C-alpha cells in the first residue's frame, strides 16, 4: 500500500492523473478529441511549455517483467512501452486506439481502466450520501454490464424498449407508431398507384378512341366535301350546257322568228307546249327532317357556355391536397385519454415498480429433506449431550469404590472396580466420538440450510424496507396493488407522451388543413367557383358539377354550325324541288290545254298527248314545219333563259363552275366511288353522319382532356410506393434487430448476474469482517438485481447494504471495487487500485475505517492512495511498515519550485 500525502496544491491530483496517463496513454486519432480527452488536456497540459508534455512510469507485471512506459501526450507519436530486461519496444502488445495502453495487459482498455481501477473523490462522496445509496447497487450492475460507468444492462434494455416504442411502435390498427404509419403509408401509396395506373390505362383507351373517332369524322367530312363538290360540278355543267344552248339559239334568233305573225297562234302554243314538256324538270323526293324541323332544333340548342369546361388542374390539385390534409388529420383519431391523477406521490414508475418487486420478494424456504436432516442431527446431538455426564459419574463412583477397597483391604473389590472403570472409560471415549460425529453432522446440516436462511433474511429485510417506504409514501402495501399502480403510472406516462405527440401532430395537421382550405378557396375564387355561405368542399363539388354542365352544353352548342349548314342545304333543296314541281305542273297544264284545242283530247297521259300533238304538227305541211321549228327554238330559248338575259345565264354558269372548282380542292381525284351518283338527299344524310361523329369526337376529347388534367403521374406514384415500401422494410428490419437485441441482452444479463453473484459474495466474504471490524460477518448477493446483503454479527440479521450507514457503504464500495477489479480483469495480472482523496469528506473515525479497509485489501493488490488529510498520513506512518508499504509526503509546489 502506498500513501502519498500532501497539502492542497501539492499536485496530488496531477500525480493521480499522471499515473493513469502513464499506464493507459491517450487516444491518438484524427479529428476533434473526445470530451474527456479535452478535459484532461485543459487540466494537465503544462502552461509554460505545452509541446513538451510527457509522462513516464515503470510497471512490474506479475510475470516479473519490468516495463518502462513513456507517453508522449503532446505529440502522441513517440509513446512507447519498453521491456527493460530485453531493451525491446513491446508497444505492439498493447496498442489501443493508436497509443500503448498497459491496461490491455489486464484485459481492459483505457476507458474500462478509468471506470474500474481509478476511484475518484466524488464517487466515494456520492456513495456515502443517503439519497444516492442505490448507487452502490448501480455501480455493481454497471460494472457487470460493461466494466464501465455508462449504463446498467437494465437501463440498456429499458432504453431499447423505449426506442422500440418510439421508433417502431405496435402494429395495431389504432396505433400511431412508425410501423403502423408506414404500413398505412404503403397501403395509401399502393392505392394511389393503382388509381394512377387505372387512370393512365383509361387515358390511353380514351386517347385511342378519340383518335379513331377523329379519323372517322375526317373520313365523313371528306365524303361530305366530295359529294358537295360532285353536286356543285354537276350543277355547273348543267348551267354551262344551258348557257351554251341559249347562246346558240340566241345567235340564230336574235329576235322572234320572221313570219311569226302569220303563224298560227295555235301552232305556236302546240310547239311551246310540246317543247315545255320535253324539257320538264325531274322531281326530287326529299327525305330526312324538313327545314322547319331543323330550324326548330337549331333554336333549341344552347349557346356556347362561359367558364371552365373541365376543372382547372390547379383547383383539382388544391382539392386533392385538402383531402390529403383532412385524411391525415382523420388518421390521428381521437386524442389519447389521460387517467385521473394517481396516488403515487413523487415516485416515478420505475421507483414504484422497484417497490412492488421488493414487496413481492419471495422468502426462500428450507427444503423438507434438509429440515428433517437438521432436526435429526440436532435431536441426536442433544440426546448425546444430555448423556455425556453418565460415564464420568460412573467412573468417579468406581474410583471411589476402588479407593474404599484399597482402604479396607479388599483387593478383589478394588480389582473389580478398576476393571469396570476401564470398561466405563472405554465407553466414555466412544461416546465422545459419537458426540463429535453428531456435532459435525449438525454443523453440516446447518451449513446446508444457511444460504437459504441468509437469502430469506435478505428478502425479509428487503420486504421490511419496502413496507416502510410504501407507508412513507402513503402507498398500498400489497404488491399487486403497487404493481397495478406502477402499471397505471407507466400507462399514464405512455398516454401523456402519446397525447403530447397527438397534440403536436394535430396542430400541424390542422394548420395544413387550414392552409389547404385557403388555397382551395383562392383557386376556386380565381375560377369564379366560390359560392358565398358554402364550404370549400361544397364549392368544389358545385364547381365540378358546373364544369360538367358547361362541358355538356359546349358539346350541344357545337352542333349548331353543323345544323345551320344542314338547314341551308335543306332550304335550297326544298326551294329547288318546289320550283321544279311548279314548272312541271305548268308544262302539263299547257300540254293538256293545247291538246284539247288542237286534237280534242286532254285526258290521256302527257306523253300520249305529246304524240298526238306531234302527229298534228306533221299533218300541217312542210311550210308550216319551218315556222314551227323556228318557233320551237325560240320558245326553247325563252325557256332556257327563264326570263333572264343570256349574260345572266352565262354569269350563273361561270359562278357555278367556280364554286365547283373551289369545293373540289383537296378531294382525291378518284374520291369517292360511293358518292359518284350522289344526290342532295345523300348529301343531307352524310352531313348528319358527319355531325354525329363530330359530337362523338368532342365528347371523347372532352373526357380525355378532363382525365388528363386530373391524372396522377404514374412515375411519381410508383416512386411514392417504392419509398413507402423501403420505409416499411427499414422499420420492419429495425423491429427485428431491436427485438433480437433486447432478447439477447436480457438473456445475457440474467446469465451474467447468475454467474457473478456467488463469485462476488465469496470474494467479499473473506474481507467483510475485517473491513467492518467484525460488525458484519457474511455477504450475500441477489442474482436478480445484484442487491447486496450483509449479515450483522450482533443480531445475526441480514441487512441490505444500500440501507447501511454512509461509512459502511464506503467500505463495502471499496471492497466491491477490489472484487470487481479482480473479476473483470481477464488475464493473470493483478490490477492495482488508484484512489484520489477518498477520505476527503469523512470524519476522522470514518477515515480510519476506510484506511483499515484499504490496508486489508492491499494484501492482494497494490493500493495507491492520495490524500491531503494529515491524520491519514500520520495513521499510515504509524501502521504501514516498509518495504511492503510506503508513505510519501509531497511538499507544496512552491517549496519544490524553490528547490
Amino acid at each position, binding site marked *: 500500500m502506498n500513501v502519498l500525502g500532501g497539502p492542497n496544491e501539492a499536485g496530488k491530483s496531477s500525480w493521480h492523473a499522471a499515473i493513469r496517463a502513464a499506464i493507459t496513454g491517450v487516444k491518438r486519432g484524427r479529428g476533434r478529441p473526445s470530451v474527456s480527452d479535452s478535459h484532461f488536456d485543459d487540466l494537465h497540459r503544462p502552461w509554460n511549455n505545452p509541446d513538451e508534455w510527457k509522462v513516464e512510469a515503470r510497471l512490474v507485471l506479475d510475470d516479473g517483467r519490468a516495463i518502462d512506459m513513456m507517453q508522449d501526450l503532446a505529440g502522441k507519436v513517440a509513446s512507447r512501452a519498453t521491456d527493460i530486461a530485453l531493451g525491446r519496444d513491446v508497444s505492439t502488445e498493447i496498442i489501443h486506439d493508436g497509443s500503448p495502453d498497459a491496461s490491455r495487459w489486464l484485459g481492459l482498455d483505457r476507458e474500462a481502466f478509468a471506470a474500474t481501477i481509478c476511484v475518484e473523490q466524488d464517487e466515494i462522496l456520492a456513495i456515502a450520501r443517503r439519497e444516492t445509496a442505490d448507487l452502490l447497487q448501480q455501480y455493481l450492475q454497471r460494472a457487470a454490464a460493461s466494466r464501465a460507468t455508462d449504463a446498467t444492462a437494465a437501463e440498456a434494455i429499458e*432504453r431499447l424498449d423505449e426506442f422500440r416504442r418510439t421508433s417502431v411502435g405496435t402494429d395495431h390498427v389504432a396505433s400511431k407508431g412508425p410501423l403502423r404509419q408506414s404500413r398505412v403509408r404503403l397501403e395509401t401509396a399502393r392505392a394511389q398507384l393503382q388509381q394512377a395506373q387505372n387512370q393512365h390505362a383509361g387515358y390511353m383507351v380514351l386517347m385511342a378512341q378519340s*383518335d379513331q373517332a377523329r379519323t372517322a369524322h375526317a373520313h365523313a367530312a371528306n365524303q361530305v366535301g366530295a359529294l358537295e363538290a360532285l353536286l356543285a360540278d354537276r350543277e355547273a355543267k348543267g348551267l354551262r350546257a344551258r348557257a351554251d344552248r341559249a347562246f346558240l339559239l340566241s345567235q340564230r334568233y336574235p329576235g322572234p322568228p320572221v313570219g311569226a305573225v302569220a303563224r298560227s297562234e295555235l301552232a305556236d302554243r302546240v310547239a311551246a307546249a310540246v317543247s315545255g314538256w320535253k324539257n320538264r324538270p325531274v322531281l326530287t323526293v326529299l327525305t330526312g327532317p324538313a327545314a322547319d324541323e331543323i330550324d326548330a332544333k337549331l333554336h333549341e340548342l344552347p349557346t356556347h357556355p362561359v367558364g371552365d369546361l373541365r376543372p382547372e388542374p390547379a383547383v383539382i390539385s388544391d382539392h386533392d391536397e385538402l383531402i390529403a390534409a383532412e385524411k391525415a388529420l382523420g388518421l390521428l383519431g381521437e386524442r389519447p385519454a389521460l387517467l385521473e391523477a394517481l396516488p403515487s406521490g413523487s415516485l416515478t414508475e420505475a421507483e414504484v415498480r422497484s417497490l412492488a418487486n421488493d414487496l413481492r420478494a419471495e422468502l426462500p424456504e428450507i427444503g423438507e429433506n434438509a429440515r428433517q436432516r437438521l432436526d435429526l442431527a440436532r435431536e441426536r446431538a442433544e440426546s448425546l449431550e444430555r448423556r455425556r455426564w453418565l460415564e464420568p459419574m460412573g467412573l468417579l463412583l468406581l474410583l471411589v469404590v476402588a479407593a474404599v477397597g484399597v482402604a479396607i483391604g479388599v483387593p478383589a473389590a478394588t480389582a473389580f472396580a478398576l476393571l469396570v472403570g476401564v470398561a466405563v472409560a472405554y465407553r466414555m471415549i466412544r461416546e465422545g466420538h459419537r458426540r463429535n460425529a453428531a456435532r459435525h453432522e449438525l454443523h453440516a446440516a446447518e451449513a446446508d440450510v444457511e444460504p437459504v436462511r441468509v437469502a430469506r433474511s435478505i428478502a425479509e429485510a428487503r420486504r421490511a424496507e419496502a413496507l416502510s417506504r410504501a407507508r412513507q409514501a402513503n402507498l398500498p402495501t400489497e404488491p399487486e396493488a403497487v404493481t397495478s399502480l406502477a402499471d397505471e403510472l407507466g400507462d399514464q406516462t405512455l398516454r401523456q407522451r402519446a397525447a403530447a405527440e397527438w397534440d403536436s401532430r394535430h396542430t400541424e395537421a390542422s394548420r395544413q388543413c387550414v392552409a389547404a382550405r385557403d388555397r382551395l378557396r383562392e383557386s376556386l375564387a380565381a375560377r369564379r367557383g366560390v359560392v358565398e355561405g358554402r364550404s370549400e368542399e361544397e364549392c368544389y363539388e358545385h364547381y365540378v358539377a358546373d364544369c360538367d354542365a358547361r362541358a355538356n352544353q359546349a358539346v350541344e352548342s357545337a352542333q349548331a354550325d353543323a345544323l345551320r349548314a344542314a338547314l341551308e342545304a335543306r332550304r335550297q333543296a326544298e326551294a329547288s324541288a318546289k320550283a321544279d314541281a311548279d314548272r312541271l305542273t305548268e308544262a302539263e297544264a299547257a300540254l293538256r290545254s293545247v291538246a284539247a284545242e288542237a286534237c280534242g283530247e286532254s285526258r290521256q297521259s302527257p306523253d300520249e298527248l305529246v304524240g298526238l300533238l306531234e302527229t298534228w304538227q306533221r299533218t300541217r305541211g312542210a311550210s308550216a314545219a319551218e315556222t314551227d321549228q323556228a318557233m320551237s327554238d325560240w320558245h326553247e330559248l325563252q325557256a332556257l333563259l327563264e326570263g333572264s338575259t343570256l349574260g345572266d345565264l352565262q354569269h350563273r354558269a361561270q359562278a357555278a363552275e367556280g364554286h365547283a372548282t373551289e369545293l373540289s380542292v383537296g378531294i382525291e381525284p378518284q374520291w369517292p366511288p360511293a358518292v359518284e351518283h350522289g344526290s342532295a338527299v345523300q348529301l343531307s344524310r352524310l352531313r348528319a353522319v358527319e355531325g354525329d361523329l363530330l359530337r362523338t369526337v368532342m365528347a371523347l376529347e372532352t373526357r380525355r382532356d378532363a382525365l388528363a388534367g386530373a391524372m396522377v403521374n404514374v412515375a411519381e406514384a410508383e416512386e411514392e410506393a417504392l419509398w413507402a415500401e423501403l420505409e416499411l422494410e427499414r422499420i420492419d428490419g429495425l423491429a427485428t434487430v431491436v427485438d433480437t*437485441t433486447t432478447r439477447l441482452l436480457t438473456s445475457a444479463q440474467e446469465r451474467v448476474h447468475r454467474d457473478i453473484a456467488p463469485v462476488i459474495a465469496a470474494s467479499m466474504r473473506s474481507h467483510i469482517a475485517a473491513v467492518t471490524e467484525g460488525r458484519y460477518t457474511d455477504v450475500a448477493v441477489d442474482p436478480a438485481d445484484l442487491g447486496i446483503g450483509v449479515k450483522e454479527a450482533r443480531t445475526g440479521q441480514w441487512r441490505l447494504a444500500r440501507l447501511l450507514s454512509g461509512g459502511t457503504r464506503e467500505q463495502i464500495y471499496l471492497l466491491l471495487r477490489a472484487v470487481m477489479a479482480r473479476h473483470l480483469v481477464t488475464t493473470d495480472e493483478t490490477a492495482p487500485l488508484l484512489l484520489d482523496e477518498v477520505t476527503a469528506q469523512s470524519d476522522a473515525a470514518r477515515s480510519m475505517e476506510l484506511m483499515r479497509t484499504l490496508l486489508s485489501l492491499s494484501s492482494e493488490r497494490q493500493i495507491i492512495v492520495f490524500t491531503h488529510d494529515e491524520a491519514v498520513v500520520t495513521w499510515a506512518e504509524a501502521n504501514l511498515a516498509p518495504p511492503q508499504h510506503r508513505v510519501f509526503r509531497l511538499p507544496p509546489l512552491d517549496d519544490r519550485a524553490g528547490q
Partner: protein
Amino acid sequence: MKLLAFADLHLDVPFAWADHRTARIRRANLRRALENIVRLAQTESVDYLLSAGDLFEHERIGPDTIEFLRATLGGSGIPTFLAPGNHDWFGPESPYARSGWGTNVRIFTEDHLVPEELADGVTLWGAAHRVPANTDDFFAGFHVDRAGVNLALLHASETSALPWQPEGKRPHAPFDAAEIATAGVDFALLGHYHYPSEGNRYAYMGNPDPLEFGEVGQRGAVLVTISGSGRIELSRRSVAVSRVHDITVNLDAPRHRDEVAEAVRAAVGGLDGSVRVTLCGELSSGVELHLPELSEVAPHLDALVVRTRDLSVAYDLDALAKEPTVRGQFVRDANEQVADAATRRRVILTGLRALDGRRDLEAL
C-alpha cells in the same frame, strides 16, 4: 449518307432513389437529352434519325410527354424511323398508333423485319415489339431480299452480352450475333442493353441520359456514316444533360458526425448534378451517423444520396467477447445465435450503443 441513332431514352421513367423534386429534374433532363439529339442531327445534317426502342415507358407516359415527343420529332423535319421496344411496345392503345407524329416520322409496327429504302442501294429493316414481353428473335428465319447495304434497327438482346448486364435484365427478342450475318444484314443498330457496346456487325448505343448511378461507358447517340462503297463508320456523341457521379468515401475512424459530414462535403465539393456517396471504412464507436442529415451537406447538388457499405464500427469485438460482463456475454450470444452476418452486425451495434447509454440505436 449520315444517320444518327439512339435508344433507351425511357421518357417518364421513375427514379426510385430520388425525391419528387430531383426525380422531376431528371425526367425533364431526359427531354432535354432528346432535344440535344435532334439538335445534333440538325448540326450534322444527317439524312435520317433512328430510335431503337424504349423511347418512353408505355405504362407511365403522360399526355404532356406524348405531345412533347410528337412536337419534337415531328417538328424537326428530319426523316425519322422509330422501332418500338419492350417498354414502348406497339399496340392499339400505344401513342405510336395515334396520329399527329408528322409526315417525317415513320414507325415500324410489324412484328417482323420490314424494309424501308433510305436511298438507292441502302435499306433499313425495322420491326416492333408488339407485346411487353416474350418477343421472339427477329432474325430467326429472316434473310434480306435485296442487294446493297442492309441495316437493321431493333430492340433486341444479343445473348452473349447478357451476363454483363445489370441483375434482372431480361432477354427480350434474344438473338445470337452470328445471326446478323446469316440474315444478310450488314449492320444492326440496337437498343435494350444500356451499356454501350459494339460487335462486328452491331452496336448498342446505350441510354443517352443517365438512368442509374454507376453507369460507365460512352453512352449517347451514334453517328453512322455510310460511304459510297458501303463502308460503315460509327462515331459516338454525348448528348447527356444529367451529371451523375458515384463515389466512395473511405472513412478513417472519424470521431464524430461533423467529421463524417466534412469528409462527404470535401468529396462532393467539386461535383455537380446528382451524386451517390458510398461510405466505407471504419467509424469510431461514438459517432452518431444519420444519413438523411448527410444528404443535406451539399445544397449545390441536384441530389445527394448517401449509403453505407461494409462500414465497420471501431469496437474491438474479439476483446469484448472475452469480457466476463453482460456486454461480453451479449456479444458471445449474438455471435452464436444470429446467423445472418448483416443482422448480427446491427444487433451487436444496437446492443453496445444501448449499453453505452446512447439514444441513437438504429445501426446502419
